[in-house]
């Protein structure tokens, strides 16, 4: 890694770290004003919990030698190999390789993925249970998938991997985390929503966003941070027919990221205009995220025109998908499923159609499409089973729900002892005592 690449990775890492507070704003604006702090705290708590874990065993479990077997194409890295980042440089390369910068970068992905899930369980989950869940889930669902996809494991293109069993030489493509991040978080959100149950009044009481400017701010900052996420995830593919150097590939990834996102805004707004008669600001903010999600795995494999198409489709499909929860009656409160699972699937599978090298639409047959689909399904399965086990165990041991009365009065007070706003001339509040 030269200093220029290192400079961009340092910036990228900071930008991805910023995405978690941005997500807190994006989600927080969508909740009612009595539960915005809890919503934001689920993200901030994820930062507190995941970072120490990542340093202790997360990097090792993701990028260490395969835990079982002969060290190839497995399910998880050895969490003790580089425990506490012991000798990271020695383990993966010589001095100056930027190994520590890679740790920094990857750490921020783990935090964000956990935080994404919280949108599915707004307003009702015990904070302590959430924190414990975060710690266990990142260990058992995130690190393994990161290992499988990026660490040379079962979902990579290595010998012995799933893809290699299907087609020889067709590696799955997941540039920045369609499977590891979005499908993973989306499935976890769905499972948690089912295990924990709906908010009191779901589908009957109004639960409209308490501050859309907060949500739009969050969406804007997420877009900014996502350049770190995608463009920082440079991976050297051999067959890119468009970009042939770091400078070119990063430029292409940047443009693709923006193209898909802008198109997804349009896609979402068009669906709204047709279905509801009005194009909303929440729709625009949601379209941004949907587009970014879909282009995450695909941003290095598409042309800008392909990215426009992918984004348009993702925006439209996600706009339709957020209605599913009412049809099927699961309270995925802030649409983790509708946006991240659906968007992640659109992107991961869409590569099979749109990849300039390997895509069906480019005349390269169905091999890539099949590989992408199978990998996506495997990720769904993995995340589903692991999350279900953790969620049920925690339900039995700690319980997931706050007291129903507290839920009605507002979880912010019940769990955090605070109210988000005091804009009035009096809050009828009395000072009692200093710390």
């Amino acid at each position, binding site marked *: 890694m030269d200093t220029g690449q290192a400079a961009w990775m340092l910036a990228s890492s900071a930008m991805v770290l910023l995405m978690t507070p941005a997500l807190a704003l994006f989600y927080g604006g969508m909740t009612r004003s009595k539960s915005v702090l809890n919503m934001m705290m689920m993200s901030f708590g994820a930062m507190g919990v995941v970072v120490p874990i990542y340093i202790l065993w997360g990097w090792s479990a993701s990028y260490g030698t395969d835990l079982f077997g002969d060290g190839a194409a497995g399910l998880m890295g050895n969490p003790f190999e580089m425990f506490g980042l012991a000798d990271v440089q020695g383990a993966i390369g010589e001095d100056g390789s930027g190994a520590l910068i890679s740790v920094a970068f990857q750490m921020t992905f783990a935090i964000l993925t956990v935080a994404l899930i919280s949108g599915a369980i707004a307003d009702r989950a015990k904070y302590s249970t959430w924190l414990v869940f975060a710690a266990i889930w990142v260990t058992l669902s995130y690190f393994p998938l990161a290992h499988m996809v990026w660490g040379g494991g079962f979902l990579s293109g290595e010998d012995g991997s799933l893809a290699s069993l299907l087609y020889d030489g067709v590696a799955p493509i997941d540039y920045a985390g369609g499977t590891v991040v979005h499908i993973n978080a989306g499935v976890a959100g769905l499972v948690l929503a089912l295990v924990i149950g709906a908010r009191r009044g779901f589908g009957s009481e109004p639960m409209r966003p308490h501050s859309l400017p907060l949500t739009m701010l969050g969406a804007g900052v997420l877009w900014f941070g996502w350049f770190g996420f995608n463009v920082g995830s440079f991976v050297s593919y051999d067959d890119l027919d468009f970009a042939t150097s770091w400078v070119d590939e990063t430029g292409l990834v940047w443009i693709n990221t923006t193209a898909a996102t802008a198109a997804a805004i349009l896609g979402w707004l068009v669906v709204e205009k047709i279905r509801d008669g009005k194009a909303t600001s929440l729709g625009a903010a949601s379209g941004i995220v949907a587009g970014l999600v879909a282009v995450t795995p695909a941003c290095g494999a598409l042309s800008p025109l392909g990215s426009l198409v992918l984004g348009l489709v993702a925006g439209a499909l996600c706009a339709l998908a957020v209605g599913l929860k009412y049809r099927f009656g699961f309270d995925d409160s802030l649409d983790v499923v509708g946006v991240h699972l659906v968007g992640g699937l659109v992107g991961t599978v869409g590569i099979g159609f749109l990849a300039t090298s390997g895509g069906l639409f480019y005349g390269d047959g169905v091999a890539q499409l099949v590989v992408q689909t199978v990998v996506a399904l495997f990720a769904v399965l993995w995340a589903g089973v692991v999350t279900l086990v953790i969620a049920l165990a925690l339900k039995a041991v700690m319980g997931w729900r706050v007291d129903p009365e507290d839920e009605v009065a507002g979880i912010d007070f019940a769990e955090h002892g605070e109210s988000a706003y005091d804009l009035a001339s009096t*809050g*009828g*509040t009395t*000072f009692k005592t200093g710390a």
Partner: protein
Amino acid sequence: MKLVTAVIKPHKWEEVREALAAAGVAGMTVTEASGYGQQKGHTEVYRGAEYDVSLVPKIRLEIVVDDVDVETVVTTISSAAQTGKIGDGKVWVVPVDSVVRVRTGETDEAAL
């Protein structure tokens, strides 16, 4: 005519509105309010400093009604708003001399 003022719990507003609509009450004026009474507020902590929040959020309804409807309206509200827990609120009735509908200038019963 009478003015019925009711102070109720916010999450009961929807039920009260429906019950009143069923009882034929077509109009009312609503304000956000805070209540102070037997229902206690809670304690909040900011950087270790404790605050007693003594006021509890309430919804306040004002309905001008014909004398004959007072009974119905008061009963409708009290039953719809009841949870049986402390803090369910109060309903009080005050005499009204006259009412005007601004749009038409109609007065009294015709204005309701």
